[in-house]
């Protein structure tokens, strides 16, 4: 899993190029994979963020284990455990990761929840049918991302 410096630099470069063409529903500025400004301008609601971790287009626990959500069944093991996420990352980092994880982690398997362009054969939700590329809405809205980030900010070990 360890990337050599050369690969890391090359990947980071590709990511910068890609993100220059990527579309989001609102203006977004990434710096080192992080987004400093709130996407919605309204503070996030951690309770709704917690719901989104499990349900709908969020479904974060399909890939991540979170001890705080242990009462929910079936946490996946594909991404790292999110316990202590707020100790490891700033709010801006977490906003960047949830909005478009591929900017922070090039080639990541984590979906880009705020991105609306650049997909291969995008479908209309889970129908298997095509969607008009101009009609694509993000997996999570600006406010939903703020809600998820505010929930992640509650995940502290220290």
């Amino acid at each position, binding site marked *: 899993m360890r990337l050599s410096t050369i690969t890391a630099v090359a990947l980071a470069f590709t990511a910068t190029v890609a993100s220059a063409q990527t579309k989001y529903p609102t203006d977004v500025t990434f710096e080192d994979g992080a987004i400093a400004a709130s996407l919605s301008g309204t503070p996030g609601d951690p309770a709704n963020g917690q719901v989104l971790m499990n349900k709908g287009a969020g479904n974060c626990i399909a890939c991540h284990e979170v001890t705080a959500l242990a009462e929910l069944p079936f946490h996946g*093991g594909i991404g790292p455990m999110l316990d202590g996420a707020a100790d490891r990352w700033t709010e801006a*980092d977490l906003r960047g990761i949830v909005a478009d994880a591929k900017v922070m982690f090039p080639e990541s398997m984590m979906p880009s929840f705020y991105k609306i362009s650049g*997909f291969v054969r995008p479908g209309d939700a*889970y129908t298997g049918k*095509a969607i008009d590329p101009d009609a694509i809405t993000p997996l999570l809205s600006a406010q939903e991302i703020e809600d998820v980030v505010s929930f992640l900010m509650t995940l502290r070990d220290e």
Partner: protein
Amino acid sequence: MKRASSLAFGLACLASAVHAQDTESKLVINDDIDITTVAEAPAHAENLSEIYSGWAFRSPETMALQMDDFDNPGMIFVDQALDAYNTVEGSAGKSCQSCHGDDAEGLVGARAVYPKWNANAGEVWTMEMAINGCRTERMGAEPWGYTSGNMVNMTALISSVSRGMPVNVSFEGPEHDTWLQGKELYYTRTGQLELSCANCHEDNYDMMIRADHLSQGQINGFPTYRLKNAKLNAVHSRFKGCIRDTRAETYSPGSPEFVALELYVASRGNGLSVEGPSVRN
């Protein structure tokens, strides 16, 4: 790119924390047919060291259902297919049996080498295409729908007579371009979730994704009887479901894209045994 090394460490820890696939149990069907469910990966599956049948990732109860044909619900459909196999249909007044012998004995071994280049047609044929070729060209009968009940049942019969034989699909001859197209599809990240077959079945097999224990997505066990929908499922139906789940526009069963993908995925299983009809959840 921050903290890549601590993330790598975290991922490595998790990798050992989840349920490991079962590499100890042996699959012997009816105390008679030995099934290879783990094998050294063929050289052209360059990112894998070992290949595993999907059987090894299922629960002990599901695994047990495949050990005896009386317990395997897929075998009911093999019986139904045998009736169709013996039934005269079409303008030529023939049944499959007229040309391929009793109990599909003339088709033993076919499953292990399909999909296969068809020189007359100048294209790669799946088992389904070969069956419909006989129906329309040799029997003067109507073709069956690609994933229809009759068709998937017949593929189960033809697979069942080759159980235990090693999958040995060719990919370096005239079929090579099709194989390369299939490989390209395998590594393409589709849909709004931007996931490729490889993301789930190569990079993360043996991991849990929500409630599902990811296998390598091998097709040596097809058609599969799934407890979830209580019927036999064709390879292309499974491909379609997996692509749909990436929030993508799928391809159609029988499409050139799925034929190519099937050839490529089948070749990744060279060395495993033909196992269908298998039982999955």
